């Protein structure tokens, strides 16, 4: 962490201001050193900041065969995801299934759920996509 001269001056001036009458060369030095050490440690990271409703759309399709719904729902149950709606269509050998899933109380992040579902998709030789609900809301609702 590099601090420019300007920033250092600002920190010092603010420290003097806040210390008021207590300001002496020693106390100011102590406070400024503390601030600089602290600022070195704080790495701003908003990765976990997610403000959405927590609903995702899981779309799955491929050749129909036994065990597909079981495979998917098992993983959803295991991660504490709540299925709010299911809809599916079968056209000759092909199926398409769409689920609305609430992941608000899930014990995994969306990325981890996607990774788990990729493994399921590989095993069952089908395709599974998980996308946040908002993208459908924005694209198809005015």
């Amino acid at each position, binding site marked *: 962490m*590099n601090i*420019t*001269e300007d920033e250092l001056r600002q920190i010092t001036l603010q420290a003097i201001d806040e210390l008021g009458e207590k300001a002496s060369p020693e106390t100011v030095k102590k406070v400024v050193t503390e601030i600089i050490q602290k600022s070195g440690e704080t790495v*701003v*990271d*908003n*990765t976990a*900041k*997610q*403000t959405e409703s927590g609903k995702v*759309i899981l*779309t799955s399709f491929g050749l129909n065969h036994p065990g597909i719904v079981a495979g998917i729902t098992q993983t959803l149950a295991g991660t504490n995801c709540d299925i709010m*709606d299911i*809809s599916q*269509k079968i056209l000759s050998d092909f199926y*398409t299934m*769409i689920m*609305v899933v609430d992941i608000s109380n899930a014990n995994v992040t*969306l*990325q981890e759920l*996607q990774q788990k579902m990729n493994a399921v998709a590989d095993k069952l030789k089908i395709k599974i*996509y*998980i*996308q*946040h*609900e*908002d*993208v*459908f809301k*924005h*694209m*198809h609702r005015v």
Partner: protein
Amino acid sequence: MPYEFEEILETIKMTEVEHFDIRTVTMGISLRDCYDRNIEVTKEKIYSKIIKHAKNHVKYAEQIEAQFGIKIANKRIAVTPISIPFDAFSSKDFIEIAKTLDKAAGDVGVDYLAGFSALVQKGFTNGDLEMINAIPYALAETKRITSSVNVASTKAGINMEAVNLMAKVVKKTAELTKEHDSIGCAKLVVFCNIPEDNPFVAGAFHGVSEPEVTINMGISGPGVVLDAIKNAGFTDLNTLAEIIKKTAFKITRAGELLGKKVAQMHGVPFGIVDISLAPTPAEGDSIADVLKAMGVEDVGAPGTTAALAMLNDSVKKGGLMASTSVGGMSGAFIPVSEDQGMIDAAKAGHLSIEKLEAMTSVCSVGLDMIAIPGDTSAESIAGIIADECAIGIINDKTTSARLIPAYGKKVGDYVDYGGLLGKAPVIPVSTLNSKNFVSRGGRIPAPMRSLTN
């Protein structure tokens, strides 16, 4: 179910089959507070500021990609036009600044950083001249820096001194990067009416009226529009315009959503969505293919300009309704080397530089990524730039020239950069002389159009 089955499948089809992606999420960073008398301190300030704001840029964008299942092809940075805050420096210092920017871009993991730029439509400051003269060396000695210079505007007219200077700079850049097919020229754009919030590299920069830090989004999606047109069958043009509008609406909405989410993660204001159809050399991601699907045999056929005008207008109308903050270029791009259909048309001789010039009068940019013979004179290049600027100032629109006078190459040869920059055949330029016109210098006065008050 809150959504129709077909709606969900349509979105999946767009992202998985039709190459729908967000072309770029560009973080604009102001460098106006980074000046110091001492060049070393300036470099330190620039580096720290970029790292401070853009450290998580790539990471956040990737997280949003995963969350919404839509790919963001490029994560980039734009900065304040370098000539403005650092006006007091010399050419040598500007090259140092370019290297610092290059290092910062590499360290935060973005492929391009744009804004090695100057705005000289009305005249040069000393710093502008020093900076422009540094461009060929800066582009030759860095990998990730792109440069743009605005030489004309509707309000100011065309600065012919700047046009002539830029023609020489383009030639010099081609020479200094001759080992790599004059790749420096692919990173240098000469503009008229440059937008201040364009997220698309190489012409991006962070305008002087922009906030401290902002996120701008550039959408893409020629593949989605292409499929929509193909599926529509042989309809009349009203219906076709409607189809393009609806498609543009959907992709713009997705773009705006993702842009806002990335900005939210950074805790910075969201800027604009640039509703441009931007092609890539990938199969099915081509503007030329869209024009062909509309009915012209190949790009360059009579009717091409009309088809492009309609496409461009429909994309704007759909996009405008979809987003409250439209900006940047907003229109279709027709770069030759970055679009397989355009490459093929140029190779087949269907596409001349004159037809391309006509097309630029109805789309969002100008003569873009066009390889011309290496021995084209600086005067001819100046003439081409001046023609583009004339289209821009009279029609009150952005135009540009990103020409590659490929050093040592002649008509029929190729420049090949791979990746997004693609590959282009060298096409002929008229050998008629315009020296006695361009060398008069001075300024072409601002047109009638400028007196709008």
